[in-house]
């Protein structure tokens, strides 16, 4: 039987599949339900200092290639959110990433202090939400300088390994990734949603999303995710939590080959049900059996781009 266990930043995970930020991670029970359905690592919703109710609906819109969302960073605030995380930790043996969002390094540092006092295993900095542009402007992940400043400040404070979540919607993601690594990031998470984009209702002549624009996720972004992960894997030596459109075992294996150490599965929870984690784990094992790989480390990576 092929082995799916994998080490990520010193923690042993039962399998390489991760519930990404913003999917099912609002409550301890949502996290536990996802764990029971086979997610090997859980990420909380991105938490902010104050509770946020998010954008008015419609906040999701479906199309052939996936979905658009503009949830608007709804979350119960760092204090309530960490209570959910701690309750999950009390009930489950699974590891948790706490995702946090702020607009400046001072607030990120305050959030980090809260997370230090929780039972979380990892801290993820959401530097890349594309859905609060009106409110907060260009995502922080668009500037290597900003990313460096924030990661540096958080690293100084954090008791937990720090993961920087990057946006695909930038000119030179490798430069941003390097800035994060130089500042001390322990790992990178990519990609956040692509775009943003929009859809139009042709009878009422309105944007389907009330926020007008929303980030793309699901199958249509997989090729972009693979390319960006591969570029970063080629250029720098840092663990990668890869995500973007992963729906099947085949997709997950492509992520691993592109350079990801572990793989997020978000939108596919809709397409294939919450059982998607168990399903993909089985599909990965089938592939490993077929190819004669005993563990994930034996799955080969692409040859790095030479430059």
């Amino acid at each position: 039987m092929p082995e799916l266990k994998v080490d990520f930043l010193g923690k042993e995970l039962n399998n390489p599949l991760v519930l990404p930020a913003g999917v099912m991670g609002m409550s301890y029970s949502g996290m536990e339900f996802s764990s029971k359905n086979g997610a090997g690592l859980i990420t909380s919703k991105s938490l902010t200092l104050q509770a946020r109710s998010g954008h008015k609906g419609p906040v999701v819109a479906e199309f052939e290639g996936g979905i658009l969302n503009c949830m608007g960073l709804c979350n119960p605030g760092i204090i309530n959110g960490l209570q959910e995380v701690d309750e999950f930790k009390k009930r489950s043996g699974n590891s948790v990433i706490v995702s946090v969002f702020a607009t400046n390094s001072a607030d990120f540092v305050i959030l980090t202090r809260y997370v230090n006092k929780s039972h979380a295993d990892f801290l993820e900095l959401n530097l890349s939400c594309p859905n609060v542009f009106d409110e907060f402007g260009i995502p922080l992940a668009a500037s290597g300088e900003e990313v460096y400043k924030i990661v540096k400040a958080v690293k100084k404070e954090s008791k937990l390994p720090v993961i920087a979540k990057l946006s695909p919607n930038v000119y030179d993601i490798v430069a941003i990734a390097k800035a994060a690594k130089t500042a001390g990031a322990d790992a990178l998470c990519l990609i956040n949603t692509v775009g943003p984009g929009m859809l139009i209702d042709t009878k009422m002549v309105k944007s389907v999303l009330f926020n007008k624009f929303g980030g793309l996720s699901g199958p249509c972004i997989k090729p972009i995710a693979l390319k960006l992960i591969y570029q970063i894997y080629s250029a720098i030596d840092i663990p990668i939590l890869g995500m973007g459109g992963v729906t099947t075992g085949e997709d997950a294996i492509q992520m691993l080959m592109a350079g990801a150490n572990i793989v997020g599965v978000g939108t596919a929870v809709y397409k294939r049900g919450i059982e998607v984690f168990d399903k993909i784990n089985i599909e990965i094992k089938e592939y490993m059996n077929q190819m004669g790989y005993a563990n994930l480390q034996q799955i080969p990576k692409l040859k790095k781009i030479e430059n």
Partner: protein
Amino acid sequence: MDKRVTLKIAKIIKETDTIKTFFFEHELGAKPGQFIMLTDFEGGEKPFSIADSNSQEFCITVKKVGEFTARLFTKKEGDYVSIRGPYGSSFFISAGNVLLVGGGYGTPPLYFLTKKLLENGAKVSVVNGAKTKDDLVFCDKFQKLELEYKNITQSGCLGRAGTSVDLACECLRRKKYDFIYAAGPEMMMKSLYPYLENYQFEFLFERYMKCAIGICGNCTIDPLGIRLCVEGPVLPKKIVDKLTEFGKYHRDATGKRVKF
């Protein structure tokens, strides 16, 4: 996969001063207990239970409670709104003696259920309660069907004062039932619950919904983490028995817990 359609409101019926039924000429293919998400693209997309559905049309019954529903109440026949669905779990269609307990705007989805139960040969008793006459709906519709029907208000404006749970308890004392259904305010179901220890039942729940496609996690229910928009909104006894938040709290639009 995309379940969104933009439809003209075919007909509007004013049930009471604060409750209206909206009809749409569209084959939704819904089952009793399921819901749709409805928007006018003016800010807000909200869940509503399907009150009736056949191959030509479907309808929803809406109580005016806040910003979104107030705006919906200004719409006229012929105006467009956009819907997606149907979503969620549906009621088991039982045979034998069945009791349906409705409260306020929870009663309309039980009407859709009643029609399917009658088609299945069930013997149906319906008890319908509300705070006042203003929240009591579908009385005439139920009375036109072959079934036992009673209604009551807490204010006593129709004679006797009481709740649908009071009426339900009387029914349970009088007759043997094979299956119980309830839809209405959560505290109504909570007070009915202790009487149903020896019965098979299903309740229709409400939680704050955003995506309605099972990803945002806003509608999960403790401690199981099941999503009211996918595994619910209709939950059977074996699930309800396990819920620790039932009648205690729910989560608001931020995901924060709010006590009932």
